């Protein structure tokens, strides 16, 4: 009997510590993960419906990232989460929910209550590309309400440094003469980078082939090795190989030049109308009360203007492009429409 008691004690100790580890290592999603682990998901914590709205928030707020860790959306979310408690008075917990180019997280987010305790990183490909290429269960504009845009991550067209092209014009001339022969890597199907290529194709009437890889890194290694002619990805990701002379950069895809490579012309400056944004914005479920939204927007705005956030963003080479409320929605809608047009034009 005694032995059993002892064993029981040890077990509960081990179990508790293991759970604590699992919990801590997901950064306090423990209130989700441990309870759901022990009981069916029905009983997932139903936060604070009864609490008066003026005390919002009286618990931690989740920020769902629809991609895996390490990408630009993930890093932006983590930079926000590091500073926002100062202004929100509560912790913001980053929860990665990758799958199907962000479709999984957005679909699941439909079930969240509009109480402000769950936010999602939205506004990029799951809002602009995915609903255009296949049927999804969410509407990116009516099911979610945008709060703020943090950044518009700038992509650039890189080519292997052995290629003879030094400007977009030369690349496009070559592509015109050799349809289907110029291939540029992308970070995966249904991404913004793929549609930057396709919108260049539409604008210039050429056929540059986007080749998806599993990540931007893989596309870049293939470009350095000459298996594809180049790739489209964020300016930052290509910078090391650019500096060491393995890559050339032909254009930046943004309204203005990128401070990291101030000499490089934008697509627009080279006469190509193909700008597609890579908005990294934060949204909440539709029907979230205005007071709560205002509170979140004000906390996020102050965070983005905070010096510690600015310095972190600078270190990550993230340019802050702040927008708020309907401005975000309109910007995202523009991109959605552009992708739709591109698809309609290139459909065979």
């Amino acid at each position: 009997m005694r032995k059993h008691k002892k064993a029981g004690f040890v077990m509960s100790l081990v179990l508790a510590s293991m759970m604590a580890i699992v919990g801590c290592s997901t950064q306090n999603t423990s209130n989700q993960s441990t309870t759901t682990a022990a009981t069916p998901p029905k009983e997932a914590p139903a936060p604070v419906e009864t609490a008066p709205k003026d005390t919002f928030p009286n618990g931690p707020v989740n920020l769902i990232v629809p991609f895996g860790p390490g990408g630009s959306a993930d890093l932006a979310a983590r930079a926000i989460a590091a500073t926002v408690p100062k202004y929100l008075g509560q912790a913001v917990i980053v929860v990665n929910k990758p799958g199907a180019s962000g479709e999984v997280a957005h679909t699941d987010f439909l079930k969240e209550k509009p109480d402000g305790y769950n936010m999602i990183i939205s506004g990029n490909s799951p809002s602009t590309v995915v609903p255009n290429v296949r049927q999804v269960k969410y509407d990116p504009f009516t099911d979610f309400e945008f709060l703020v845009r943090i950044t518009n991550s700038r992509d650039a067209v890189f080519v292997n440094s052995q290629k003879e092209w030094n400007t977009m014009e030369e690349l496009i001339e070559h592509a015109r003469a050799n349809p289907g022969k110029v291939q540029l890597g992308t970070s995966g199907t249904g991404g913004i980078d793929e549609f930057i290529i396709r919108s260049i194709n539409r604008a210039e009437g050429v056929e540059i082939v986007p080749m998806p890889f599993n990540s931007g890194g893989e596309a870049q290694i293939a470009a350095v090795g000459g298996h594809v002619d180049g790739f489209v990805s964020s300016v930052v990701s290509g910078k090391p190989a650019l500096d060491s002379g393995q890559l050339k950069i032909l254009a930046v895809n943004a309204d203005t030049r990128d401070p990291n490579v101030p000499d490089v012309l934008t697509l627009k400056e080279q006469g190509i109308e193909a700008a597609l944004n890579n908005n990294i914005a934060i949204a909440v479920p539709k029907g979230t009360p205005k007071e709560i939204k205002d509170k979140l927007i004000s906390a996020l705005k102050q965070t983005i203007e905070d010096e510690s956030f600015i310095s972190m963003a600078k270190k990550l080479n993230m340019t802050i492009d702040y927008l708020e409320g309907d401005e975000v929605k309109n910007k995202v809608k523009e991109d959605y429409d552009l992708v739709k047009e591109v698809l309609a034009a290139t459909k065979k």
Partner: protein
Amino acid sequence: MIEGIMSGLLDGFVHLMNPSTILFILIGVTVGTLIGALPGVGASAATAILLPVAFSIGSAGDGLVMLAGIFYGSMYGGTITSVLLRTPGETASIMTSIEGYPLYQQGKGGLALSLAAIGSFVAGTVGVVALTIFAPTLAKMAAVLGPVEMFSLILLSMSLVSGLGGSSIPKSLIMIALGLLISTIGQDPIEGVMRLTFDSRLLIAGIEFLPVIIGFFAIANLVTELDQLSDTMDFPTKIGSIVPKAKDLKDAAMPTTRGTIIGFFCGILPGVGATISSFLAYATEKRFSKHPEKFGNGAMDGLVGAESANNSSTAGSMVPLMSLGIPGSTTTAVLMAGFLMYGLQPGPLLFERHPEVAWTLIASMFLGNVMLLVLNTVTIPFFVWVVNRCQPFIAPIVVTLSVAGVYTLQNSMVDVWLMLVFAIVGYVLEIQNYPLVPLILGIVLGSIGEMSFRQGLIMSQGDFTIFLTHPISAFFLATAVIMVFAPRVYKKMRKRTIT
């Protein structure tokens, strides 16, 4: 050049000799070990979560050595739960649970754990040496192998491991095909349309690999145990000697060497990484083994090879990051963000512009591996003691750990349901004597094989001969053909000479 390396490394060690840096290495490798031991939370998630923490530490060296420690430490931790509970903590320890758990049942658990730790240590250290000396040359290799070569390499891997299925070849083939089929569920990697998802939320993300193996091995194993016994579960209590004898070390020497080499090269290749490397090392050991029939029922060489491979692969995957400035995997992408946060740009210029950080990091990997060796051998008796103490509660503990771990993988219950489904599937398949390894292999190699195959066809605009006209690819394919037919031809020839 060697002199430069030596003096750089020496400087690195001098930088390390500072209590806070040593503390952060220790924190990193301890967190890494725990993450490796627990199913679910992987190294990439853990490093991403700790990134802002590392940043607030302030010193670039301290933060980066901690993040790197988590990365290579995670490959050690997987061994403990794999051997003692048949619960692989991460996907790269799957082979460890296949061989380690039977060894534990045979009373050789202690030896399995210590040899795995030693093999990991050797592989980790040799990997870092190779990273230190050959990184720039090897990085070129990573770039030479493009999609075409990758597909042929995957095919070669499949031919190598096709022999892993046990006795019945048709059954193995059925299981590989099933695995390949499962790997196609979800988003088409090129066109972006959904395949085989039946419009179900359960399937749109595709089938994650971890829920499958946790279901197959950890949970299905419990069901089997329950099935066989009435009221007491017969978990082994003896683990035998922990200290390996000279003969044990001698037997483990070659598997460790081969595992180290295979792991390191797999690590360098973008998108290949630790899991596939452990498969390949395991398959190689079976080819070289004098007792291939033991594989699946406690083959120490298979276990040691696989464990060595997954450790040296982490050093390998640092190669493209350090020498090209390009991350080839999720975890190295997070590490790259870590570099950027400190205002450092990884890549060929890192050693010129910030030699102190670069060399401190490399030196820390040597020290970290020593810490991990101590951590993972000295604590063996403790873990065994805990497991023995908890005898009556092993099953609930395994289930709890598995459910919690699989949930945290993508923060979704979907994976938990999938795990349970695969537990039933695994149980049924096991009692029908269908081998599970080929199925897992199909899932792992299927998606990367399909991707590279279709990329290759995009490159050639649909011309299949591209796989034969690229010399390296042709070499891999030829080797694959030899791998499949050589044993049979050899057998026939031998028969002829005998008669």
